[in-house]
């Protein structure tokens, strides 16, 4: 990043250096400007980013940390009056000692094991198919695959939930019509697939577009020479295109994994529809419930910090493992 900026800044400095040599004047001023400019300019460039990061990332994080070490405690008998007090690691002990937190991580993993491979596999498949030389209606297909991404998660969950619910499900009606037993789409183990289906449906388009864009960015000459060498379209896709877009695959894969770790709005919406999803189904729902349903912002903050730490460690670990392969060892 820094290398391209330095030369451009050096030029005006060189021009200034000539100036005092001309008309006799106070040499101090240009000197001062020369010293000031390099010190100020980088800060102006990074300023907005620093302000945004401080205001939107660090300040909430610090406040969450503050909350996680506090709690409401009641003084006096009967109803009494609550006040905010320092409780040390109380919230963390409670949060880490709660078996439902581990159960929620377990459910999230099951969900992720379904959602991540299917999302990535289908996004890659669609991107390669769209890039296939013989594919027709690519424009239409691309938009059709992308459109679900534009549907907000809550709406998607409501819409799919409606299609799953026994009393109103058109899917069940279709099964009944052809004489098959009606499946219970939100019961027992199927609820994992039901939730995963909503997020997969919504996120394939986004990932597909990124991968497709990487594919379009590859030089056509490689394909021409591959074809001249007798490479079939399938071999072209698997042996040439795929290895060349590995960085894109890893990037979208990372997005998908982080998204799976943070899954919230779809199951939270579907909880209102089905008995199969409880308020502590995945970690984010547990935090939401504690903060906004049962009004324990402090305990929720502690759990949120724990989840943030887990997510951060998982993401960094994954990135470290994949980095060399993805970005050719550039650190």
């Amino acid at each position, binding site marked *: 990043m820094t290398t391209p900026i330095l030369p451009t800044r050096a030029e005006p400095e060189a021009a200034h250096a000539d100036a005092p040599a001309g008309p006799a004047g106070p040499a101090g001023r240009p000197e001062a400007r020369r010293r000031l400019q390099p010190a100020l300019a980088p800060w102006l460039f990074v300023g907005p980013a620093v302000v945004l990061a401080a205001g939107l990332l660090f300040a909430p994080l610090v406040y969450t940390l503050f909350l996680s070490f506090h709690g409401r405690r009641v003084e006096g008998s009967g109803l009494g009056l609550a006040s905010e007090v320092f409780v040390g690691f109380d919230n963390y002990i409670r949060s880490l000692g709660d078996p439902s937190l581990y159960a929620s991580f377990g459910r999230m993993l099951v969900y992720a094991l379904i959602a991540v491979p299917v999302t990535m596999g289908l996004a890659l498949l669609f991107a390669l198919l769209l890039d296939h030389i013989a594919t027709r209606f690519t424009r239409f297909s691309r938009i059709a695959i992308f459109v679900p991404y534009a549907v907000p998660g809550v709406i998607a969950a409501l819409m799919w939930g409606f299609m799953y619910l026994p009393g109103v499900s058109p899917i069940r009606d279709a099964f009944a019509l052809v004489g098959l037993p009606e499946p219970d789409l939100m019961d027992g183990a199927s609820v994992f697939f039901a939730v995963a289906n909503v997020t997969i449906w919504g996120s394939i388009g*986004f990932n597909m577009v990124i991968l497709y864009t990487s594919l379009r960015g590859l030089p056509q000459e490689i394909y021409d020479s591959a074809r001249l060498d007798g490479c079939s379209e399938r071999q072209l896709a698997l042996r040439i295109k795929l290895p060349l877009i590995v960085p894109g695959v890893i990037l979208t894969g990372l997005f998908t994994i982080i998204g799976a770790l943070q899954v919230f709005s779809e199951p939270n919406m579907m909880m209102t529809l089905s008995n199969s999803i409880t308020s502590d189904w995945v970690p984010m729902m547990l935090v939401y419930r504690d903060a906004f349903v049962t*009004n324990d912002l402090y305990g929720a903050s502690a759990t949120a910090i724990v989840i943030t730490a887990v997510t951060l460690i998982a993401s960094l670990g994954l990135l470290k493992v994949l980095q060399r392969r993805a970005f050719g060892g550039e650190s």
Partner: protein
Amino acid sequence: MNSRLARTSGVVAIVTAAALLAGCAPASGGDADSEQVTLRYWSWAPNIAAIVDVWNEQNPDIQVEVNTSTGANDIVAKLSAAKEAGTLPDLSNATYENLPNLVVNGIADDITDAFGEYEDQVATAAWDLTTFDGKNYAVPQGTSPQFLFYRTDIFEAHGLQAPTTWDEYAEAARTIHAADPSKFLATFPANDAQLFAALSQQAGAEWWSQEEGAWSVGIADDASVKVADYWQGLVDEGVVATFKTWTPEWQAALADGTLASWLSAVWAPPLIVQNAPETAGLWGAVRIPQWDASNPVSGVLGGSGTIVTTGTEHPEEAREFAIWLNNNEDAINAYVENASIWPANLAGRELPALRDTVPPALAPSQTDFYDLAAEIDDETVPVTWGPDVAVAYSAFNDAFSTAITSGGSFTDALESVQDTVVGDMEKLGFTVE
């Protein structure tokens, strides 16, 4: 997917910013004209603006701005956040269940000075639900006598009478399900802890009680266990459905006659029309089934009041408005016209606009709906809500959802709710016996 989340949080940020802006706007409107006061009032009642308009016309010096963006369920969270931010509204609606929490957290203000003298004008049950240690913390709006709403046409087709006891109710459930296995008398909704609490109160349960400053929690007491066992029997028999209420599935079932009845309260008729408009005029309303028909008892199913917050700069004007809103004849008439309530104000209960009305959901012959409401209200047991009802309801939803999907015992589910609530209260520093 990551950017989907980023977008969601963007929306959240915008909404939050809008809420903050709205909150910052006219905190005290006394600058332009030192005489005029503007009060901010949070409410979730559907047509509340129409009722407040009546006040605004009569009181040019005290203008009230209604904000209806907060629902009954998240009012505690939003008020707590507003208190932290120093942007509490002057007034807010609060359910009776949430009121103790708002008192404990220093959000609901003591209004005894202004409201104390109204004791003989307000129904005792509503008065007791808003009074703690002899101090008034809310002006009660209404109470919610429990009713069993049933489809008169379906009952007639099966030769059934409206059940008066829980045994008859179970028989009706069996009859209706036996005639058509896709039809049910009712659903046992795991998401309606409020209903289960009311049914337990009817059986004699005291989920929370207080003696000499110490709390007792009786969520898994004998009376509640009796109710749990009763419903477990019906669920295991398969004669009642188990889907949640307020879902598209429930809506469809209410509309197409899959459900033949609904255990609810006085506020239900407009919701029946809203969720199942085709069934308007087909419903009958009776007292809920009894354990002992000779001694009818009812529980508390909802109800709310108006609080003046500790953040108001105009406590006198705010109290005046809160009292007017729930006790003035014009206000109650506007309520009756725009919403289905059973006023806490005793004179309001006699208003012709109320007594002469048959809600459109009910059969035209049901002219005694509000007379019956008055009777049921007299039979309602006194109830004490604890400081963490939201915790109990959330734990109930999870425990009973799990019991239904995994075939677990309802009694065990009640035990787990009891443990969660006691644990929470002890954590908060309450003395629990």
